[in-house]
């Protein structure tokens, strides 16, 4: 529904990654001088849509019009030239340079001698730019690395402001800010708006969205669900729009007969990430851990596994207090961690399937340090067949497999290690639907065999479909616990976002 007044029109935008469709033909439009919020669950396609607009990703299909003219967005640079600037959660600052150099990167004022920098004028200019966005009292000579995260964000915004953008994309700008800083950010947004810029505001925090946005667009599963005015709706209705779907036969039926407590944590704390987290997982039970990005859920998992150090609290396994000071301790105790990013820390990509699957049991497979390669190959082959990894040639390199099969290789590694506590962080991320179902079956089968399983996920259907109980984290603390049979997606999301129902 493109109107004459629409400054930005995105029509039929499609984008796929491997086998998953991130955007399925999105029609989106926005006007100058408005703050347009974009909300949706993780994986709804918000970031993908914004990255396409910012030139960071290429669209597979669709048209983008700016002021009625087709926009050519080949790179972030061409987006800059069209007046589109994005400020992401991960900053693009050069940490070991000063604020001045970062703000004026590529356009430092020259001195009388060509090639020399006029530092006096440069610092002056940088101060002006910061003042322009209502930010004073920073020494522009300071190194960016010495600044707090919120100050870095201000520098990032000042840097973007130099080119006087017509469209601002702010991706979760409030995630790192305190209340006071948030007020300052909102003042800035209102100022940009009064200069008739278009501000696209992506946030998980619905209360903020209601405070600042003129219109709100909801995305779900790569489709645009609708655009509403905040005065026409409320948070609960918005959440319904974000979630609204039915659970199919996706998730295997499973006998739920939890046994004894296997893993329990008491008052677990890690300074700066989470504090006072307590919960337990019983034998044969699947517990879901839900939270928004930045809630500390992954950090909890890493600490239980000994990948990071805790600063307080206790971990008990089978009733005994254990201390996992390294992943080695955890693996010996029978705990496994399937990390959320298998490419980064789950698999050795240039090694074969058999190397990856046998990695956690190299010691058990060897006598006097010498590997029993025959036994290794037999065990790995059997495990790979059981999980129907395709192809099942165990000499294949991990990087030659599809995402789903890579994830199966990671699971095979821990099955072979006979872990009886499994922590699965986003176990189906980047996995096609068919393999997803297979992975759910594997997890269920493990639980039926008596393993204690903790699933961390930002997909609510996955949490509700797979787990017996769900615990919710918000801003580093436990925010609630639900029997999933009685819980709804709305109630979990409201709990995670800190919204009263």
């Amino acid at each position, binding site marked *: 529904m493109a109107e004459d007044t629409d400054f930005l029109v995105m029509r039929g935008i499609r984008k796929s990654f491997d086998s998953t469709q991130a955007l399925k033909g999105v029609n989106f439009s926005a006007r100058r001088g408005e703050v347009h919020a974009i909300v949706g669950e993780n994986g709804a396609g918000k970031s993908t849509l914004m990255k396409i607009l910012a030139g960071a990703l290429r669209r597979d299909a669709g048209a983008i019009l700016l002021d009625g003219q087709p926009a050519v967005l080949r790179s972030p640079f061409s987006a800059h030239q069209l007046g589109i600037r994005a400020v992401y959660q991960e900053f693009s600052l050069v940490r070991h340079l000063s604020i001045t150099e970062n703000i004026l990167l590529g356009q430092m004022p020259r001195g009388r001698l060509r090639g020399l920098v006029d530092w006096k004028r440069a610092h002056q200019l940088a101060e002006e730019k910061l003042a322009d966005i209502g930010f004073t009292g920073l020494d522009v000579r300071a190194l960016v690395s010495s600044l707090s995260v919120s100050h870095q964000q201000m520098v990032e915004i000042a840097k973007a402001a130099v080119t006087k953008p017509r469209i601002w994309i702010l991706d979760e700008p409030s995630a790192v800010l305190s209340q006071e800083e948030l007020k300052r950010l909102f003042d800035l947004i209102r100022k940009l708006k009064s200069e008739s810029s278009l501000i696209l505001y992506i946030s998980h925090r619905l209360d903020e969205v209601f405070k600042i946005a003129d219109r709100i667009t909801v995305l779900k599963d790569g489709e645009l669900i609708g655009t509403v005015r905040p005065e026409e709706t409320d948070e609960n209705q918005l959440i319904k729009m974000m979630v609204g779907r039915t659970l199919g036969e996706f998730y295997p039926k499973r006998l739920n007969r939890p046994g004894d407590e296997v893993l329990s944590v008491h008052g677990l704390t890690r300074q700066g990430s989470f504090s006072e987290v307590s919960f337990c997982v019983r034998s044969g039970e699947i517990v879901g851990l839900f939270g928004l990005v930045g809630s500390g859920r992954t950090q909890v998992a890493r600490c239980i596994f000994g990948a990071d150090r805790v600063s307080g609290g206790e971990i008990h396994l089978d009733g005994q207090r254990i201390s996992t000071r390294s992943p*080695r301790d955890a693996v010996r105790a029978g705990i496994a961690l399937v990390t959320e990013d298998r490419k*980064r820390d*789950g*698999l*050795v990509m240039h*090694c*074969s399937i058999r*190397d990856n699957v046998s*990695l956690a049991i190299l010691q058990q497979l060897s006598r006097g340090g010498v590997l029993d390669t025959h036994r290794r190959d037999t065990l790995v082959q059997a495990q790979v067949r059981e999980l129907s990894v395709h192809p099942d040639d165990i000499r294949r390199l991990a990087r030659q497999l599809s995402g789903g099969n890579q994830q199966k290789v990671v699971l095979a590694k821990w099955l072979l290690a006979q872990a009886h506590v499994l922590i699965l962080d986003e176990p189906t991320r980047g996995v096609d639907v068919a393999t997803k179902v297979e992975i759910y079956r594997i997890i269920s089968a493990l639980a039926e065999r008596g393993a204690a399983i903790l699933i961390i996920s930002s997909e609510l259907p996955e949490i509700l479909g797979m787990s017996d109980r769900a615990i919710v984290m918000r801003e580093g603390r436990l925010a609630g616990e639900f029997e999933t049979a009685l819980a709804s997606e709305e109630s979990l999301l409201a709990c995670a976002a800190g919204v009263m129902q």
Partner: protein
Amino acid sequence: MTNNVVQGQRTEALSWLRRLFSSSGAGGHRRWVDYAFLAAFFLLLLLAASMSDVFFTQRNLTNLLRQIVTNGLISLGMLVVILTGGIDLSVGPVVAFSAIVVSGMVERQGLPLPVAIVIALCVGVLAGLFNGFMISRFKLQPFIVTLATLGAIRGLVYVYSETPITPQDPSFRTIFSAQILGPFTLSVLIMLVAFLIGQFFLSRTAAGRAIVAIGGNEEAVRLAGIDTRAHVLLAYVISGLCAAIAGVLLASRLGIAQPSVGAGFELDAIAACVIGGAILGGGGGTVLGTFGGVVTLGLIDNLLNLFNVQSYYQQIFKGLIILVAVLARRKE
């Protein structure tokens, strides 16, 4: 035409060897460049045989083999370090230290040769322990740490002896030069055995597989419950030990230990690994490939010597070979 046929037969004859080495290092499937390198290698051999009648004499072959012993051993150790994603620049001074210590212990302290050798090897192990400890414990960059020890160990060598040491005991020179099998001297056999052990270590032991995996993704290996620090440390100890063995054999071959010996050895070793397909920064490299790299470099030196090409040109030629090797293996 005939050349092609001969090449074909030779490559086929090597296929059993390839199977033996099938799971070496990190490689799984070979790419066309590996075959291209094999072909180029045999072309070089044929070229050598047809252009020089001296090349295939036992004397020249013995010489060639003896000369590659030093670089061979150092490269083997270097490969293990490179597989972990590191680099060891300090191997040259370690060679010198081991050479001068073994000579000094025999000549000045009058110790029996076996004891002197053990002490020299301990020196290499200590150097490796120091490098490995600094790198694994404090997470320092291997390049920087071994650059520092490159200078420091050279200094220690001169502290031990400013002047060359020439052991008078005739057995010091002859023991490793004894021809045991055709052109193979004891020193050459030691190197070959070292390569076989290296191959076995990297493909058939728990520690070897862990080392290969670390270079690809250290965090994934750590999260699999493996003590990555200990394995990185081990890699540098292996490198130090290999360099020390090379030092002992070099001192014996030359009959004299110069405190200045070994300058630039690290570069030849890195070159051999890279020609053999190793990836600096980890994630690739095989024992067989490294051996090929060592022999190729030795062959080029030998040929250019036979044709009386000045050593400056040899350097230029070697540099070109390295560039061609990495260009050919570049990912598209």
